[in-house]
């Protein structure tokens, strides 16, 4: 028999230890899954976790790591702020899409003008797009007490419809022979988001992710606003007693996470994706939820978690081409990681006692 016993003070060791244990458990369970699919589990795990870093094509794949990690980190940090405050924005995917669409619209409207002001304007527009999309659930929550989880999620489907309309209608490339998709940003210099250091995979999105991680870390550790965010999440009534204005907090957290998701969308569409297409978004907004938890809602942890999750994407693609692992298997793998992470987390607040041992000890 197992029994849980609450720790008087959360364990510091397990706060850092749980993500590691969860990753190991996921590798074991994932290995079983891969074996069930008829693949050699060790080969698959090596292809996913080792080859992109140290294998034959590591020189290219390491760069891909930053390309994928950038948006994940950027979105996850925003989400983590809200999750810490007990505000559940799970519609980041929609905010990401809207940031991309609105930011791209600004860039494409200026075509073919070349000006140094175009890209900053696009960045602002991208952040605005995500922000305004997140403001809908925020305002509905504060004005009407509407559940932000459901509203932000519904807006993902709405955003995807708008994206489809953009790719096939108002942003379609007039010189694209009627195919869906906008003009390519890589051939429009003023509006493109190129690799900053050749081969590094670092573009403006990665820079923004790292800078944001630093800023948010300081905010959470040292600033009264960070204290209020944590307080509101842990003890909402104590937060009101302290003097937190719940309305302002919701607007702040939703706004930041929306703007960051919008930024991620803009950087993606003007860089790695290269154009607005019906399905340029690949679910980063949802995967970022896993990244946020894997990083224990801590900005620095999220940077590491984002890199790890990017590794599963890059390695997963490798495994798909080299070993024929279905790409959905990676999605299952990521889902399992979140399960294990949440489950193992019990260790930081509870002690597990084996009743059998206790009795014998008496």
């Amino acid at each position, binding site marked *: 028999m197992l029994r849980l016993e609450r720790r008087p003070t959360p364990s510091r060791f397990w706060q850092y230890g749980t993500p590691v244990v969860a990753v190991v458990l996921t590798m074991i369970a994932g290995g079983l899954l891969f074996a069930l699919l008829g693949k050699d589990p060790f080969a698959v795990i090596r292809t996913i976790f080792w080859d992109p870093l140290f294998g034959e094509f590591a020189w290219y794949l390491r760069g891909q790591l930053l390309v994928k990690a950038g948006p994940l980190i950027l979105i996850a940090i925003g989400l983590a702020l809200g999750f810490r405050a007990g505000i559940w924005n799970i519609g980041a995917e929609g905010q990401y899409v809207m940031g991309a669409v609105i930011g791209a619209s600004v860039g494409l409207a200026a075509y073919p003008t070349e000006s140094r002001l175009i890209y900053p304007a696009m960045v602002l527009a991208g952040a605005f797009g995500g922000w305004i999309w997140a403001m809908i659930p925020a305002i509905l929550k504060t004005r009407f007490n509407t559940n932000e989880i*459901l509203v932000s999620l519904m807006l993902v489907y709405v955003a995807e419809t708008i994206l489809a309309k953009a790719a096939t209608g108002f942003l379609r490339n007039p010189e694209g022979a009627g195919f869906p998709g906008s003009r390519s940003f890589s051939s429009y210099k003023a509006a493109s988001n190129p690799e900053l250091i050749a081969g590094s995979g670092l573009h403006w999105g990665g820079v923004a992710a790292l800078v944001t991680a630093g800023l948010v870390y300081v905010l959470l550790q040292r600033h009264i606003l960070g204290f209020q965010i944590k307080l509101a999440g842990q003890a909402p009534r104590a937060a009101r007693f302290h003097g937190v204005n719940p309305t302002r907090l919701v607007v702040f957290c939703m706004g930041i996470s929306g703007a960051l998701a919008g930024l991620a969308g803009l950087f993606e569409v003007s860089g790695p994706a290269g154009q607005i297409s019906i399905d340029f978004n690949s679910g980063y907004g949802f995967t970022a939820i896993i990244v946020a938890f894997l990083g224990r809602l801590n900005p620095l942890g999220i940077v590491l978690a984002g890199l790890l999750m990017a590794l599963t994407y890059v390695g997963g693609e490798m495994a798909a081409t080299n070993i024929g692992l279905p790409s959905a298997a990676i999605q299952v793998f990521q889902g399992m990681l979140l399960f294990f992470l949440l489950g193992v987390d019990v260790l930081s607040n509870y002690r597990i006692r084996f009743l059998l041992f206790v009795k014998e000890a008496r």
Partner: protein
Amino acid sequence: MDFYGINPAVLIASLMVAAVPIMLAALGELVVEKAGVLNLGVEGMMIVGAIAGFIAAVTSGSPVVGFLGGALAGAALSLVFALLTQFLLTNQVATGLALTLFGLGLSSLAGQGYNGIKPPATHAVPFGPLAEIPFFGRILFSHDWMVYFSVAMIALVWWVLRSTRLGLIIRAVGENHEAAHSLGYKVNRIRLGCILFGGAMAGMGGAYVSLIRVPQWTDGITAGAGWIALAIVVFASWKPWRVLIGAYLFGGITVLQLNLQAAGARIPVEYLSMSPYLITILVLVIMSSGRGRAGLSAPAALGQNFHASR
């Protein structure tokens, strides 16, 4: 009486079909929430039920086996949620999201090789001459058995929650788990049972999508129906018969917008296809405003974990 060439009797009959998946899923979630648990994994359980039901029906050749398979798969997935939230005390919101993310991946993995296959057909219940009654025959007596089953389940859940001891205990646990515990009820076990029921219902709802409503398998087939089911529980203020109304309302909107698209109405297609989601938001706003009305009828312990410390 037709408009845009849409026959009202056909429209009503098809909205009843369109409503079945969300009705089943929402009814299951209603019981889960009545017991004080918020399971946001409905979408994940539905889609896993959809593929499991599809595979079971295709391999056995029997749609009934398909629905059982869907229910079983939904319940199995919800068991993961139950173990995590009830015994490892994880955050219910996060765990529900994990369930959905995991379920989407799992269904897509399991569904490989099942694209483009037709599942065995489920036929309408033979009501004989009753089905020939003009207008009402088409609406009331032309459906497959799941349509009647889902309505019967509403009645059953309503009766159990209102008039049986089991229902009273479920409500008590969702209202105040500390008090229920001190009276000697096994809070976590009762919740476990409700979660499994919710999972089975969601799985069955998912199977209905892939076996009857569409009927075939494609990735992401449930397209947010699980989330709409969650919204319907709020819309219904946790009352079973209002789930029926809510599901028919949303079924109606879905069917109407599809019909309008097909009929070439002058409203742009995009607006039509986003309308169910926008209307869901609108309904949520209406239900939540007015001095927290939804908040008052919500089970008091909703979303809180219970751990008997002493």
